[in-house]
């Protein structure tokens, strides 16, 4: 407790000299005032009035100035009001007893007032510490990214203590990494504190021994920094270090305590983020496990079926060539081609999924004409849709979107192929493109008159490898729509399946027409026709 008091009074060190000046001035003025209004006869009241400066200095400046005020007041009282006037000699020796009593009362009052003041300051300081710890803990809980967290801890600690701080985290097995070390704003020359070899060496020692070291602690007290291990119950996560000034020992003790509290908070936060990360990894592992199983099932079936057809037809042709009529031969070779095409689709989708999953998918964004994309898609799907009536309704103005045309084309190929796959021969497929300039959104509808999708499955069909129960008889891997969703979302758009008012399914793709605030950079050039 006394250390805390010392610490809190320390900053007033420099103010003490003006305090004495103020006391001197105040008492002198009071004396002049009392003298002027002729209170010299009323000794008791004058003595009581002289208690004021003592109380005031006790409350505002503490013990020292209060005692000084008391002593100075006694001298003034004696000199100006106790007969003989204007002399330090005392006529009646009983006055001496009064002086002693006055001094004792003054000192007692002063010490009481001073203690009150100190307690107030202590409470204030505690509140400040609690506040900064509270701010720190509140910030810690909101952050889920380890790096941001570390930068935040260092900044917050550095702000609280007014000194550069650094956080060290283990890097793999051997090395400790300074993850962040922002210098306190006032001390520019200390930029990058904590990068030095000796500092890292001490941090390593602290990390491995789990003990506090540095200035103000029992170990390595000659070091300019203070190092606190970030410890939770099970393990040490890292080291928090603060550069200390050459302050007094008590001050360091106080900061040590604060730093330990910060360290505890930081350790908890780091542990939380690490656990969250581990949980996420575990979830990803489980998910990839599930996908791997689904992939194996799907691949073994989807790949083997066309392979069987290809191998069977090819060996048939090779071995029994003479047996087949020209029509048989055509049929078998057609079989081979269809099987190979089917395998090609599967491989394309698998590759697309891998690219999407691994984050390798880089958008090659350009301004593209949606009508153009649809025309390319139609030439691709016409090959396997001889009996569908495909209609396209485009807006009058060409609609441009800023996107990757090859990927968007893949989306539409998948969607339109699905519409063909799940709808009967001779049925109608309508592709409608509309643009909403005010929302800066482009909408593409692909409506078919097929079997439709039960409501419960309308979101699930976009999951990887999800195949609807009702469509098990149609070949497919359940990858196409998942890829579509991935691509559309990378473009910042959405894709949903809706029931088509006329029966069947309607897929709606919404894509922002602008990206990053870019507008289609074209205005009519005003070219004159020849």
């Amino acid at each position, binding site marked *: 407790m006394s250390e805390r008091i010392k610490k809190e009074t320390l900053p007033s060190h420099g103010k003490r000299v003006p305090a004495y000046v103020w006391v001197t001035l105040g008492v002198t003025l009071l004396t002049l005032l009392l003298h002027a209004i002729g209170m010299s006869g009323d000794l008791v009241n004058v003595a009581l009035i002289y208690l004021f400066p003592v109380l005031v200095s006790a409350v505002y400046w503490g013990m020292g100035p209060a005692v000084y005020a008391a002593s100075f007041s006694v001298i003034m009282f004696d000199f100006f009001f106790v007969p003989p006037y204007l002399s330090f000699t005392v006529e009646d020796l009983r006055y001496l007893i009064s002086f002693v009593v006055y001094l004792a009362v003054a000192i007692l009052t002063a010490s009481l007032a001073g203690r009150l003041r100190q307690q107030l300051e202590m409470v204030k300081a505690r509140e400040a510490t609690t506040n900064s710890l509270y701010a720190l803990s509140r910030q810690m809980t909101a952050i889920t990214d380890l790096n941001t967290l570390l930068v935040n801890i260092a900044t917050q600690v550095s702000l609280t203590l007014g000194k550069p701080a650094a956080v060290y985290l283990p890097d793999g097995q051997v090395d400790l990494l300074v993850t962040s070390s922002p210098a306190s704003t006032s001390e520019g020359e200390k930029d990058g504190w904590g990068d030095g070899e000796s500092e890292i060496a001490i941090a390593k020692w602290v990390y491995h021994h789990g003990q506090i070291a540095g200035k103000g602690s029992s170990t390595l007290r000659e070091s300019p920094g203070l190092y606190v291990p970030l410890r939770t119950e099970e393990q040490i996560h890292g080291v928090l270090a603060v550069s200390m000034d050459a302050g007094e020992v008590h001050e360091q003790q106080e900061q040590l305590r604060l730093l330990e509290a910060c360290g505890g908070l930081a350790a908890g936060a780091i542990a939380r983020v690490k656990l969250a990360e581990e949980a996420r990894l575990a979830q990803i592992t489980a998910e990839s496990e599930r996908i791997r199983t689904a992939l194996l099932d799907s691949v073994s079936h989807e790949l083997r079926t066309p392979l069987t057809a290809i191998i069977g037809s090819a060996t048939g042709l090779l071995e029994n060539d003479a047996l087949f009529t020209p029509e048989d031969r055509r049929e078998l070779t057609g079989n081979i081609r269809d099987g*190979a095409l089917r395998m*090609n689709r599967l491989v*394309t989708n698998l*590759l697309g999924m891998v690219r999407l999953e691994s984050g390798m998918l880089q958008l*090659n964004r*350009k*301004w*593209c*004409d949606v*009508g*153009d*994309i*649809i*025309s*390319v898609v*139609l*030439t691709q799907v016409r090959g396997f849709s001889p009996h569908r009536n495909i209609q*396209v309704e*485009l807006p009058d103005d*060409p609609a*441009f979107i800023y996107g990757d*045309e*090859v990927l968007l*084309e893949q989306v539409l190929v998948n969607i339109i192929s699905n519409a063909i796959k799940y709808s009967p021969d001779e049925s109608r497929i309508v592709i409608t493109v509309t643009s909403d300039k005010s929302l800066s959104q482009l909408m593409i509808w692909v409506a078919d008159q097929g079997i439709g999708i039960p409501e419960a499955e309308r979101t699930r069909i976009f999951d990887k490898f999800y195949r609807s129960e009702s469509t098990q008889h149609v070949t497919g891997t359940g990858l196409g729509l998942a890829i579509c969703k991935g691509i559309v979302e990378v473009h910042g758009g959405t894709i949903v399946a809706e029931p088509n008012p006329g029966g069947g399914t309607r897929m709606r793709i919404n894509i922002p027409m602008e990206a990053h605030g870019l507008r*289609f*950079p*074209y205005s009519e*050039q005003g*070219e*004159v*026709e*020849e």
Partner: protein
Amino acid sequence: MNGPLGARILVIDDEPQIRKLLKVTLQAHQFELHECGDGEEGVIQASIVHPDLIILDLGLPGMSGMEVLRRIREWSQVPIIVLTAKDQEGDKIAALDGGADDYVTKPFGMGELVARIRVALRHVAKTTDEPILRFGSLTVDLAQRQVELEGTLVKLTPTEYEMLKVLASNAGKIITQRQLLQQVWGGHHHESDSHYLRVYVGHLRKKLNEDPTNPRYIQTEPGIGYRFLLSAE
């Protein structure tokens, strides 16, 4: 549509299976086939055999297909059709800009490849100073700078006309966005100006009464460029 019989084709591909496939089918189409399995040898063969057309695989081990293309283009204007795997968008453009005449993606249909070979061979045979290009009901008169569709004059802006000229005089052949920008706007263009192409192609299509979703003349090769369709002929 019969290609020149007996045209000599050099296949540079490291996959024996693809070479065999090409050899069997192209010979069945009356072409004379030469083949080799690596790029270095391919360059030498190209100078010894003097083929009428080269089919070049981009994914060669050792000397890459792009390098082979560059070496051959140093001294020869022989048509080169590049074989690529579909997802190498950038490679296709680089190959076309680097002097290839066309590309075919793997896996490819034989009919498509043979059609491309015929177009490329005919393109060489065609005299380039032919002043009037005819495609069905569309006539482009290069001497008069006039375009007629179904007997009526089509009014085009200078830029639209230049684009049509470049595309039509390379009919059947793919023109990359960069080539088109270069030939129409000259040197002062930027890669990112490709959206102008889209706008002008849109205008051009409208003036040629073309359904953009089912083009008669100008076909978009997504991500790469445009091709003036020969089938309109």
